[in-house]
């Protein structure tokens, strides 16, 4: 039997954004920014892009165990200002967040500033208006901005990730408002990232729960991938990130297309980039041990002597390489919260 849930409704004096903003405020809801009122007509328009019973309970979101239906997701997407064509991406990102390996209970409750990075791959990116080009992490593109925001609103309203209650983040961070971009497939020398993870559907979404992006600028290398990658490795090598004590933690390396081209021109594959960074992003074992009482490391790492170096993550495959961004000699490092694994899913409504 299908378990269903029907959302509550409220009466507003008018359809203005101000009235809805006040209603949310009075109930302790919202992300602090203005919203679009989720009238039945607007929610229906969103649901036109989904298939299946809109009121079927798909899963609960932790830590609050709030039920998620397509309609509830659509309500939050309307609030966020999502164009309806982006709605399948919102639903797919929420499915990824509900996956057990994501550890959403920990992701939302932690004092760490972790925010879900949402990457959009394939046909839906173009069809629904996402950008993976210049300025892809914002501001400005409506699909990127509103889809990331719809996911955050669902975390607040359904998962209960309310600061001080279900979200203990000491500071929070800007990426908790929205953190979404498309992959720059047209300029990726290695094809689709989703395909490299075995997801062959025309459209896919990846979610990685980590920090905000750290920029790496390299215009001096004159295309020498070794020099570019050494800089990226240095940005990955830090005691100040959870990857250091947690070896299953992934890094998302968002290569600007110019850096990616420099690597591809020297015949480096996506895996070569990961392997090189695995080899170069290292610190002496003694340094890790001095700074962390608890090391959630792969077993082999515990047996390495103090005077040897250890990598910032347990295996090269934890270093995920994606191409996004526009012209310029910049790439990004997105460290992990740690006790979480990224998920790539085919887009489904």
């Amino acid at each position, binding site marked *: 039997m299908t378990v269903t849930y029907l959302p509550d409704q409220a009466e507003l004096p008018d359809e203005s954004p101000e009235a809805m903003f006040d209603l949310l405020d009075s109930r302790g809801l919202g992300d602090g920014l203005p919203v679009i009122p989720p009238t039945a007509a607007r929610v229906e328009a969103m649901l036109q892009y989904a298939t299946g019973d809109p009121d079927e309970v798909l899963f609960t979101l932790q830590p609050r*165990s709030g039920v998620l*239906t397509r309609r509830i997701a659509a309500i939050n997407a309307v609030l966020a200002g999502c164009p309806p064509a982006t709605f399948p991406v919102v639903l797919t990102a929420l499915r990824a967040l509900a996956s057990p390996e994501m550890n959403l209970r920990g*992701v939302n409750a932690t004092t760490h500033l972790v925010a879900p990075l949402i990457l959009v791959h394939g046909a839906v990116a173009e069809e629904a208006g996402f950008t993976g080009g210049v300025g892809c992490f914002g501001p400005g593109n409506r699909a990127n901005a509103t889809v990331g925001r719809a996911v955050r609103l669902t975390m607040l309203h359904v998962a209960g990730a309310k600061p001080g209650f279900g979200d*203990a*983040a000491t500071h929070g961070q800007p990426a908790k408002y929205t953190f979404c971009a498309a992959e720059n497939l047209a300029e990726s020398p290695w094809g689709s990232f989703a395909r490299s993870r075995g997801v062959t559907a025309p459209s896919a979404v990846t979610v990685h729960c980590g920090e905000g992006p750290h920029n790496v600028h390299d215009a001096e290398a004159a295309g020498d991938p070794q020099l570019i990658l050494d800089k990226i490795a240095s940005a990955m090598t830090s005691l100040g990130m959870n990857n250091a004590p947690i070896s299953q933690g992934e890094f998302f390396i968002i290569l600007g297309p110019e850096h990616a081209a420099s690597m591809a021109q020297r015949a480096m594959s996506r895996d070569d980039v990961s392997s090189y960074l695995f080899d170069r992003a290292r610190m002496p074992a003694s340094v890790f041990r001095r700074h962390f009482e608890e090391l959630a490391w792969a077993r082999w790492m515990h047996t390495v002597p103090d005077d040897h170096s250890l990598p910032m993550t347990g295996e090269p495959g934890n270093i995920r390489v994606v191409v996004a961004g526009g012209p310029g000699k910049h790439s990004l490092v997105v460290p992990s919260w740690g006790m979480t694994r990224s998920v790539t899913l085919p887009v489904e409504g």
Partner: protein
Amino acid sequence: MSTAMTTVYLPDSEPRPEVSKLAPSPGSLAGLRVGVLDNGKPNAGFVLAYAAKQLAAETGAEVTLVTKKGPFGMSANAAIPMARDIFSRLLDETDIVLTGMADCGSCTAYSVSDAIELEKAGKPAVVVTTTRFEPIAVTLSASFGLADVRKLVLPHPVGGTDEPTLQEWIDEATGRVVSLLTTGA
């Protein structure tokens, strides 16, 4: 201007946690076996072991298992559930359990959910938290379907506080631990 009202949907769906109850509270702790489940947070091992020792001295209980939460009792990150083999050992080798420290976000989430697993299996369990994380522990206990999770609230912070001070805090709190275990409140 129109005076018609506009109907809108509300975005916060209802929580549907799996609801559970506390294990029956023993009338007396004399002769009972005390377990310590240490999540590895700074000073957690010290606080829990000392609290268990004081509890045993005061009540005639006996400390029978002190373990971290990873497989084979190895250390593990505090942001994941206790290992299944450790859960089995707690069921076999203890009657009551002290666990923590619930003094961050994800470690509070998993200390609370570990305690609920133990309560469901019939083992009264006290989660040790701090004043600054009590609101999170209260919210998460309700979210996980057992609002009455037994919580011992110590001053904040436990991590970084010297051992004599921690001992003072626990000495003052031992009566509270006894009450939580024997009455649930």
